[in-house]
């Protein structure tokens, strides 16, 4: 418990220092990067519950890729979002990718959205029609009981495309006479 208290204290100190640092720094304006777009789509598609608590950029990208949502040349965190990438990712998040006439032609993805009456002038307008995925797929199947914190996944029956049956924990006291050979080795 003392260690937890110490960690909390360090966090508060770091936040204070960082806040002080940021107040002296003018806000930066920059192009929207692919990681920012990925985070927005994860939220709009209601996939946040399938992420670990402190997800890395790779966790966002892996989750979207598991749901078949990716730019033509893949996700690159720092790369600015192009209109082609934006249109393609939005169509895939709408699960209408197979309706695009010429998927190898980037302009077709833009044309598809425009034909549907969607605007892609800004990230906000392009992502406005997105809804939670009806069949979300999580990137891993195991629950978080006792797992190391940086990589934990949500507990319960994480949607994984195909659903796994739960196996009950075993509480019955062991027999006083072993019924099987002792295969386990002492470490």
């Amino acid at each position, binding site marked *: 418990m003392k*260690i*937890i208290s110490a*960690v*909390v204290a*360090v966090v508060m100190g770091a*936040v204070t220092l*960082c*806040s002080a640092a*940021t107040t002296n720094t003018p806000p930066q304006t920059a192009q929207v990067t692919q990681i920012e777009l990925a985070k927005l789509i994860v*939220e*709009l598609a*209601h996939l*946040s*519950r399938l*992420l670990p*608590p*402190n997800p*890395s*950029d790779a*966790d966002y990208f*892996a989750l979207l*890729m*598991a749901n*078949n949502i*990716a*730019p033509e040349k*893949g*996700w*690159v965190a720092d790369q600015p979002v192009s209109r082609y990438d934006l249109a393609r990712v939005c169509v895939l998040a709408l699960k209408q990718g197979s*309706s695009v006439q010429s998927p190898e032609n980037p302009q077709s993805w833009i044309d598809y959205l425009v034909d549907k009456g969607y605007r892609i002038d800004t990230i906000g307008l392009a992502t406005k029609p997105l*809804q*939670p995925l*009806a*069949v979300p797929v999580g990137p*891993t*199947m*195991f629950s*978080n009981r*006792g797992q190391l*914190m*940086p990589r*934990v996944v*949500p507990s*319960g029956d994480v949607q*994984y*495309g*195909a659903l*796994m*049956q739960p*196996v009950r*924990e*075993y*509480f*019955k006291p*062991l027999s*006083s*006479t*072993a019924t099987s050979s002792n295969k*386990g080795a002492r*470490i």
Partner: protein
Amino acid sequence: MNKSILIAAGVVLGGGFAWGLGSDNLITVNNSISLQWNDNYYQAPTNKTATAVITEQPEILVNINRENTYLGVHYRPSFVWYSNPAIQRREVVNHELDGNWNQTLSSRITFSIAETLRRGIQPEMLDRNNALIFPDQSYFENTLNGTMGIQLRESTRLDFSGRYYYMHYDDEAIATNSNYSIASAGLALRQELTQATTVSGSFNYDQAAYPQANVRSATTKSVGLGVDHSFGPRLLSSLSGGYQFKGFTSSAISGQNSPYGNFSLTYLFDPRLRLTAGGGYSLWEADITNYASQERLTGFASLGYDISARLSFFASGGITHGKYRADQAAIPGAVVIEGANQTSVTGVTVMDGTDSIYQFSARLSYQINRHNWVDLGYGYTTVKSDLRPDFDQNTYDVSWRVSF
């Protein structure tokens, strides 16, 4: 039941609150009804009891997106009916609730909170001769995660995280030995080396507390390194590993230091086919009573394939292999007498052993129109164990899902 009502009321209030915030908020309601055939409801090695299972699952999703704020709520109850009259309790209701709050405080600081609540009803199982197969294992499981991320420099990020995990069983006999909580704290420092590679270092502290079985309480410290690497536009990989130091409150149980590791791969073969695979090894809370810990090795693979615009196929397979040590037997108040590879604890033999679970599942999903899907599914589970009866189980299901 009171807690269930509270959960439902919270969701309804939350949903109403969200609805009242304006037209930009999004509330989605889905529903799924499935018919399943389970050939081994009791998970018994022989004399299997088969049953049809009807499951009704409404689902409410709430999304609130603002410039710096995201709130998401997901609630899904399950109403389950079993057809076989030999099953003592043929109607159960389970609950799942997820909440996410992501907040951007400044250009450098973000925090997120994730709440996960599960209420599972698992009534006792008796066989045809009224012998106990499983006691009542109904439970509340709650996980509260909080993370604060600080962007120290453009390519450097520091995450502080805390987690409180709580597991509570209804049955008094089980609760005595198996109710527990884990309080965790940790930090992770990430450094982007190139556009394709990020390395990280982490430290975690976990404190597991069993209020009525202090003999199982333990603390674990973990230090590790990790790397996320993109091998190309379609292949992502993650690898992490380190060392764990686990010590038990009781001096009668041996502490354990162990390496740990996890890896995962995500690969988009083409726009229609994707694969995810991974594995891990670490110390873990025991799934079998009478033990304080296990060494758990896991592996999994899954693929999704869009056969056509309307037809998709999913398949998953996984292995969980747990190794248990006799010198980590955990029975409160017992006298431990060690022998060769086994420990006699007040008349109960506890031995070294392994427990392996193999699972496979497949699903074919057909989209009838924009709002309706029909699924066909199959699942197979088998357990091979030194420490409990082996069994296998097949399930077949057909379901209809609708998004309103």
